[in-house]
């Protein structure tokens, strides 16, 4: 397909090399952080840059897990991710299904209102006042309910439901199935792959969410990992770890490697699901790119 000229071959060589450099530059910060989190104090101060520590030390991890601050934050993150994703899917699919039925009265009005809410929003302060007015401040629900539906995802799911053969719905209703029955027994089982994709979209959003915790959660016992990470790395606050809980000979590891260890702990879950993420998200981006 390509002409094999002299210029072409040199270009290809440089291109392969350049792309290798780009890929390495992309992942090297992570590897450095992981390496640093396992490094000893002396190594961190003596060697400027390394990707494999000479001596592996777990003291940073021992230290950050010596109090339950980090574990509690991780549990909060897991909780809002799991419960939040279930709420997202429930709200999104039910609404998407009823809006996918073209003969529903008021459908166009509601769809237009949803699209309008994507263009114009009341903004941070009025939304904050609504959340506050509902008494959700400092409640874990404040990180779940205000983002229960992403209008963008809703419209994509609605378009997907619309593509399903109408005959399925008609035959189900002839057999005496109510609309809720059709939805639970026919529509949802048929859309498992799509639901998996959107579950991942939402779950990553919750795990990475910093904004709603910043706005709505003051109580440090309810901070998710992202806020704790900010406190530790950026503000050098958020007391974590207590050497007195450990062996008396335990030497407190340097701040730098404590920070790196916390970064690693908050990144691991994302890396564990990365193979699925990549597959589903690429698909999701393509779905979103098709206008409905």
């Amino acid at each position, binding site marked *: 397909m*390509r002409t094999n*000229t002299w*210029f*072409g071959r040199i*270009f*290809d060589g440089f*291109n*392969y090399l350049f*792309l290798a450099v*780009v*890929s*390495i530059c*992309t992942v090297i*910060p992570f590897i*450095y952080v992981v390496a*640093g989190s396992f490094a000893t104090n002396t190594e*961190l101060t003596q060697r*400027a*840059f390394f990707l494999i520590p000479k001596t592996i030390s777990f003291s940073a991890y021992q230290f950050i897990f010596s109090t339950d601050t980090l574990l509690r934050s991780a549990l909060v993150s897991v909780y809002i991710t799991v419960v939040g994703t279930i709420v997202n899917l429930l*709200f*999104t699919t*039910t*609404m*998407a299904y009823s*809006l996918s*039925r073209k003969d*529903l*009265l008021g459908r166009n009005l509601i769809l237009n*209102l*949803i699209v309008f*809410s994507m*263009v114009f*929003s*009341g*903004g*941070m302060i*009025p*939304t*904050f*006042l*609504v959340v506050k007015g*509902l008494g959700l401040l400092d409640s874990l629900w404040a990180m779940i309910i205000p983002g*229960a*539906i992403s209008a963008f995802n809703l419209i994509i799911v609605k378009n997907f439901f619309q593509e399903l053969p109408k005959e399925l719905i008609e035959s189900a209703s002839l057999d005496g199935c109510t609309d*809720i029955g059709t939805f639970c027994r026919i529509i949802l089982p048929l859309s498992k792959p799509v639901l998996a994709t959107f579950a991942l979209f939402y779950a990553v959003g919750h795990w*990475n*969410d*910093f904004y709603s915790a910043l706005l709505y959660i003051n109580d440090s016992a309810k901070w998710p990992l*992202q806020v704790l*990470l900010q406190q530790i*790395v950026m503000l050098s606050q958020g007391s974590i770890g207590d050497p007195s809980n450990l062996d008396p000979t335990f030497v407190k590891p340097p*701040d*730098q490697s404590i*920070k790196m260890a916390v*970064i690693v702990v*908050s*990144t691991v879950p994302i890396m564990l699901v990365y193979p699925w993420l990549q597959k589903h*998200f690429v698909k999701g*981006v*393509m779905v979103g790119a098709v206008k409905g």
Partner: protein
Amino acid sequence: MQKVQEYNPEWPSVRPVAKNKKVLAKLSKDKWLYVLLLPGALYFLVFKYLPMWGVLIAFQNYQPFLGFFGSQWIGIGNFKDFFINPDFFRLLNNTLILSLYNIFLFFPAPIVLALLLNEVRKTFYKRTVQTLIYVPHFMSMVIVVSITYVFFTIDGGFVTQLVEQLTGHKIDFLTSLSWFRPLIVLQTIWKETGWGTILFLAALAGVDAQLYEAAIVDGAGRWRQLWHITLPSIRSTIVILFILRMGSALDNGFEQIYLMTNSLNRQVADVFDTYVYFVGITQGSFSYSTAVGLFKAVIGVILIFGSNYLAKKSGESGLF
């Protein structure tokens, strides 16, 4: 207003009644669909439309203990205060400069990378590169900024040490006024360039291979193929994304800017979104900060519709 409520014996004629009955029958047939619709509808009503009505506090002197109905209406006073405040031009300046940085430095990056990836013929190599460069997209902003801190901190950050050894100067990147914007753009490039290639790669994959074969037969070299086949095939994707980017010129990404802001770089770091947070949530000036947010939102809507209009004018399909 009065007239509508007056009793009019001729009003309930036959046809509307029939129509109403039809509507009622339809509603009761679809009652379970409306049950399914209800949670979502309530969500949009409470968390999207109630705040839209709540922006009216921008025209009030809102006091939390008086509530929405008890607070005093003061017209456009908050907007006046904002426009004569020197902060206004600083915010506008910072916001627009950051957007320009992003448009000129970040926007072309995924296009170039996608074109280079498209030249790779070895599928395995291409897949590997893609797998690696997509990783940062899934990291939260907090992780990205944390890693930036680890590398650029004044006490023992790798980059800081390297720069000190090479130039003899110890630069405090994280509080420096001149390094704030470059760091933001660097983060965006690192996080989103790889991911940004997806749409372009998809457009490139759709190009008919016969076009290239015909071009080769006609004696076109690689540059000519790039110029006459590859680039035209992603032109509309580029135009759409560029116009979308222009439409969101006032959005700089709240989390990223907020996390990179500290007391020493506020002068260049403050943008509309973070300013609303600091003035509204931290200092409690709800009405004033809502006015700032409303101003930004209205300009944002105008920009989106304007850019959509431009997209259609330029022969693309636009967004809506």
